[in-house]
């Protein structure tokens, strides 16, 4: 247990030392939020009502889909994996440590955004804060699950750049955070429902929990768990 906890703490420190992680977990989401927050609130007087939710969905999606997989691809597709393995460090710790560290980082980013939005843009605070933050954590876990799948299955950082964008761009464009989802054609609305960002925005903006809209989170987490367990088993077997 001590080794596992040390690994999580170490991953947390390593993330802070990585410019790429800092950019995708904190700097770009927060700069984007300040920039887009200004635009949204000036073109739509009602934007302040959902500003926290929309910008949080953007930031979490960016960190989980672009940030998390990069360090996993670097870990599992290099000699680091061999060095850890011969050193007696279980391979699953790479994925789990990154996941937990990412969860903490993205939660912190979301909290920073939550407070700045109120101060700078006079954004509305969700009516039920307990429900909001529980939903937020579930959304972060779901998004990180997708990020971990990408990190374990894509074999190079160059391929990952493309694959991540294939998930990130539609997540942002079709989730309703940039413009209302009902302005989109039906088939695009359907495509949007594949991505956690759509359900994240829907659930974070809702006033109460609805089992049907929480179900995609659970399903995604379950699928990710199964896929990642299978993949880690494959990575552990000898070449």
């Amino acid at each position, binding site marked *: 247990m*001590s*080794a596992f906890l040390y690994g999580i703490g*170490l991953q947390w420190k*390593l993330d802070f030392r990585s410019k790429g992680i800092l950019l995708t977990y904190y700097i770009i989401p927060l700069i984007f939020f300040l920039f887009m927050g200004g635009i949204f609130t000036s073109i739509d007087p009602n934007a302040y009502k959902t500003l926290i939710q929309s910008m949080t969905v953007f930031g979490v999606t960016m960190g989980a889909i672009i940030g998390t997989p990069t360090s996993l691809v670097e870990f599992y597709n290099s000699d680091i994996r*061999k060095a850890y*393995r*011969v050193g007696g460090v279980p391979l699953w710790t790479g994925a789990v440590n990154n996941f937990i560290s990412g969860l903490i980082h993205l939660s912190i980013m979301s909290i920073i955004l939550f407070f700045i939005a109120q101060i700078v843009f006079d954004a509305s605070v969700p009516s039920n804060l307990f429900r909001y933050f529980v939903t937020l954590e579930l959304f972060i876990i779901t998004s990180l699950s997708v990020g971990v799948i990408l990190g374990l299955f894509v074999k190079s950082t160059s391929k990952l750049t493309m694959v991540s964008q294939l998930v990130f761009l539609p997540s942002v464009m079709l989730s309703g955070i940039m413009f209302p989802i009902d302005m989109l054609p039906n088939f695009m609305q359907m495509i949007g429902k594949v991505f956690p960002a759509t359900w994240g925005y829907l659930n974070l903006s809702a006033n109460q929990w609805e089992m049907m809209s929480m179900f995609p989170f659970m399903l995604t987490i379950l699928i990710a768990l199964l896929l990642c367990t299978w993949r880690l088993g494959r990575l552990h077997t000898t070449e």
Partner: protein
Amino acid sequence: MTTIINIDSLTKQYGDKMVLNGISFAIQRGEIFALIGTNGAGKTTTIECMEGLRKYNGTIETHGKIGVQLQTASLPPNIKVIEAIKLITKWHSTTIDMALVQRLNVDLILNKKYKELSTGQKRRLHLVMAMIGDPDILFLDEPTAGLDVEGRVALHAEIKELKKRGKTVVMSSHDMAEVEELCDRLAILKNGDIGFIGTVYELTKKNQDKYRVHIKLANPLEMVDLVSCSYIGEQQGYQIFETNKLEDGLYELTTLLREQNNSMQDLKIEHTSLEQSFMHIAKGVKV
């Protein structure tokens, strides 16, 4: 002596290419054993099969805890040396052996990040990591590649110390002087087979009655058929001959020089070395 590693009919294939053709050998507890061979002979594959990093056909039995220093290994670029050592130490449920860290001169780089280390410093760190948990068998894949003289000396001293403590070391190397200095036995891999297995003495003994005569001449030599020695080639301005009858060979050579009005500027005589014996077996060439 008891067998600590037993390999029987080890076969390994990458795609269509057969890398190991059913090799068998045993390594005894407490010995320093070297696997040598030319590039692509199968040394790293054999070692990685023993370490459990590769699938294989055949049987490998290891009796004891193993420590591994890989030929190519890496760590996250921003991890500090002390953090890497602590991580491995914690997974082995042990404490950091600072004496070991000092012996391998890793104490001076504890707060450096992995990306800031030189090749030699990285190898020393991976060696410390391999030795965490006090393994019975230590696999070292080209341990001195990239090490400076100081690092090499420290490593050799550490390997000798391990032997004194009854540990088994299995290493691959291209450095014949290192093999000669450290190893009790060696195996030469040649195209996936074992070309030779035994002690350094047994290997060189095969050619021990042979001498290499290096002659630096005033004028080019006009070559004729020789009876008691054979011409090997030229190296750094010296003509090299091999003979197993030194007196007869020298007499024949000096006679030849006199006949050709040539003269000797320098002369060196040496026994056939381990390197030459190795090349003879591994490549089938005289060096």
